[in-house]
């Protein structure tokens, strides 16, 4: 069969379409965005009437998936690793309810923080919730594992977590598709109290989740994605998890590794295979793309007599993603000598696009804040976080989705004046609305600036749940209409905008300013498409 070139993300999406999903729910976040985007743009998915939905946030996305699976259908929810924090309540309880139709939650981790505020490892969530985890090694496995994962999910009536990392998500390779499967019919759960987590019922459900654990460990032992490959030299035994296997093989150009290798891509990790490796080899080296989760378990509290090398003893760096050189050096192989980057090369950090509305907003806000000094503007996650860098130097925080508003409230409660929160429209509907309600109910003396560019811009322009309704939402939450303004961030409106910022910053109560102008990239794209249609 003809190979199709797919990103790791796209392989998961195509796998989901072919495995018969009826819907996919997501909030955009690098490096997970392209999964749902692919289904959203797929003609095949449209013909099959598959729902591709950009939810308000990751929690509503996972809940949508839980509901679709309740109705007997196969479904997927996708997010970046920190999105799983937002969805954690829904995700962890979905392990207790179990599922009816097949359900896969994909969490895309970002070791080395290419586009994220941390590099947390989603596998901890799988272990925490006692659910099976799939961690594909390459694009083909990512595709195949979706089919496999839905079968596993329906066999155990449990959601399955699929964990990928940036390098797989955003790397293309040829993928061979397998036969596509019909969607499930709508079918209610056999037990209509399955999803009722009243304490008495939840206790029963939890016991059955615990009872399934031994079988899930057995699944790991016999998984086609976990392989024990023998090697003649038992001085060393190697365990790789996920894409770490690729970096190991890269170091042996003839593809023959002299040591026994255990490749793990399904969790719970296969204990018997690990035991065998540890018994047979003098030393063990563990390659995990992410946190040393299994390495820590192998060491145990008492650091038993096994000799284990990995991220915890300095053989590998404790943080950051792996690569062929780090793995090669850890194995004591010679790394090619190379020239250094010439000193003339300077850094080129990302920056706001020329013509971006945030530029005009920050210039006006900076001018209004000038009399008070720096350090009073709490911001959030989006393109506008780049306002922290030169030449704007306009904001002082970026912590988690929505924290701009709630941190500004806390700081105002502490006595900081003025206290300003800056948040994008999509981030506002993701997690800012509840914080604004708090501030309105308390009439906190602070100003919230909602940058409305009518799109989720940083991840490449997905539909924003806030589009066209930001002011109405604020009014609905109870903001005084006298202190809620829409402004147009343009150079020609600068004086007028500075005056509005100044007035509201001085006001001893809650105020909202909504600079509204379409993202320049999405405007450009829209105009080009319009032009194409005319032709």
């Amino acid at each position: 069969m003809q190979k199709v070139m797919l990103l790791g993300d796209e392989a998961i999406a195509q796998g989901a379409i072919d495995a018969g999903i009826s819907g996919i729910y997501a909030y955009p976040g690098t490096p997970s965005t392209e999964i749902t985007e692919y289904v959203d743009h797929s003609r095949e998915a449209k013909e099959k009437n598959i729902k591709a939905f950009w939810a308000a946030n990751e929690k509503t996305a996972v809940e949508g998936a839980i509901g679709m699976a309740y109705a007997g259908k196969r479904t997927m929810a996708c997010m970046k690793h920190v999105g799983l924090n937002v969805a954690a309540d829904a995700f962890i309880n979905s392990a207790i309810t179990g599922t009816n139709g097949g359900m896969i939650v994909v969490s895309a981790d970002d070791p080395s923080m290419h586009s994220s505020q941390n590099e947390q490892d989603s596998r901890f969530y799988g272990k925490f919730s006692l659910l099976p985890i799939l961690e594909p090694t390459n694009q083909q496995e990512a595709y195949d594992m979706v089919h496999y994962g839905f079968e596993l999910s329906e066999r155990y009536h449990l959601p399955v977590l699929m964990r990928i990392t940036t390098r797989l998500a955003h790397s293309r390779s040829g993928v061979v598709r397998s036969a596509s499967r019909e969607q499930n019919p709508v079918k209610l759960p056999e037990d209509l109290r399955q999803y009722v987590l009243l304490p008495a019922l939840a206790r029963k459900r939890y016991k059955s989740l615990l009872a399934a654990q031994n079988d899930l460990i057995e699944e790991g032992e016999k998984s086609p994605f976990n392989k024990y490959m023998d090697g003649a030299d038992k001085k060393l035994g190697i365990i790789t998890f996920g894409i770490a296997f690729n970096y190991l093989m890269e170091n042996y150009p003839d593809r023959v590794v002299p040591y026994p290798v255990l490749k793990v891509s399904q969790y719970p990790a296969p204990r018997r295979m690990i035991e065998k490796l540890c018994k047979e080899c003098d030393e063990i080296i563990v390659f995990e793309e992410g946190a040393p989760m299994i390495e820590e378990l192998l060491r145990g509290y008492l650091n038993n007599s096994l000799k284990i090398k990995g991220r915890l003893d300095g053989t590998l760096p404790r943080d950051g993603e792996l690569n062929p050189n780090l793995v090669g050096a850890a194995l004591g192989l010679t790394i090619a000598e190379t020239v250094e980057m010439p000193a003339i090369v300077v850094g080129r950090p990302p920056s706001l696009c020329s013509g971006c509305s945030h530029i005009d907003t920050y210039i006006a806000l900076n001018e209004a804040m000038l009399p008070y000094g720096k350090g009073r503007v709490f911001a959030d996650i989006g393109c506008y976080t780049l306002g922290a860098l030169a030449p704007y130097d306009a904001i002082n925080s970026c912590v988690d989705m929505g924290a701009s508003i709630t941190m500004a409230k806390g700081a105002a409660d502490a006595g900081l004046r003025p206290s300003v929160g800056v948040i994008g429209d999509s981030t506002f509907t993701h997690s800012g609305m509840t914080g604004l309600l708090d501030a309105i109910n308390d009439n906190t003396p602070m100003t919230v600036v909602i940058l409305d560019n009518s799109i989720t811009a940083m991840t490449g322009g997905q539909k924003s749940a806030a589009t066209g309704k930001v002011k109405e939402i604020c009014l609905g939450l109870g903001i005084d209409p006298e202190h809620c303004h829409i402004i147009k961030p343009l150079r020609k409106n600068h004086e007028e905008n500075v005056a509005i910022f100044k007035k509201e910053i001085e006001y001893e109560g809650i105020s909202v300013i909504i600079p509204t102008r379409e993202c320049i990239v999405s405007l450009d794209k829209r105009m080009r498409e319009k032009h194409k249609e005319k032709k």
Partner: protein
Amino acid sequence: MKKDIILGGVGGQGILSIAAVIGYASINMGWYIKQAEVHGMSQRGGDVQSNLRISDQEIYSDLIPQGKADLIIAVEPMESLRYLPLLAPDGWLITNSEPFVNIPNYPDLEKIHAEIRSFPRHVLVEADKMAKEINAAKSANMVILGASSPFIGIEFDKLESAIRAIFGKKGDTVIQNNLNALNLGREFALKNM
């Protein structure tokens, strides 16, 4: 046969159009391919690269090890130098000479060009100027691909077919402009290697 290629540029310059042509030609020959890209925040005017690996044998790592790349293809001169630590001792550096200046401290262009010229195996091509001269200003990346074509290990007509297939929907003028740009780049490289 195996070629490991680093594509370098600035977010928004379209380095992936070059990757797409090489990728299409490779897949058509039944080769294996891996192409790691940069998505997300860096796309906003930051430095971006793509690790493009093609081989007639299965490829494992999505990333090219340091000192192992066969060539660097860059659409921006300073960006071409950023990836030198990845280049193999006998590797080639092919780059556009035209800078993309979006930072206040962009180095002196003459010094950048001198640094590139001091590298023994380089092709420094005025891709933007050459593309404009044949009224194909948008095809500068194909001039650069043409200038790289002697080093990629793919027969030239396979690259031409890939361009016809990829730009097929955009009409004959676009295809012809890109083919002309590709040929122009190749001639330049063959004369200046």
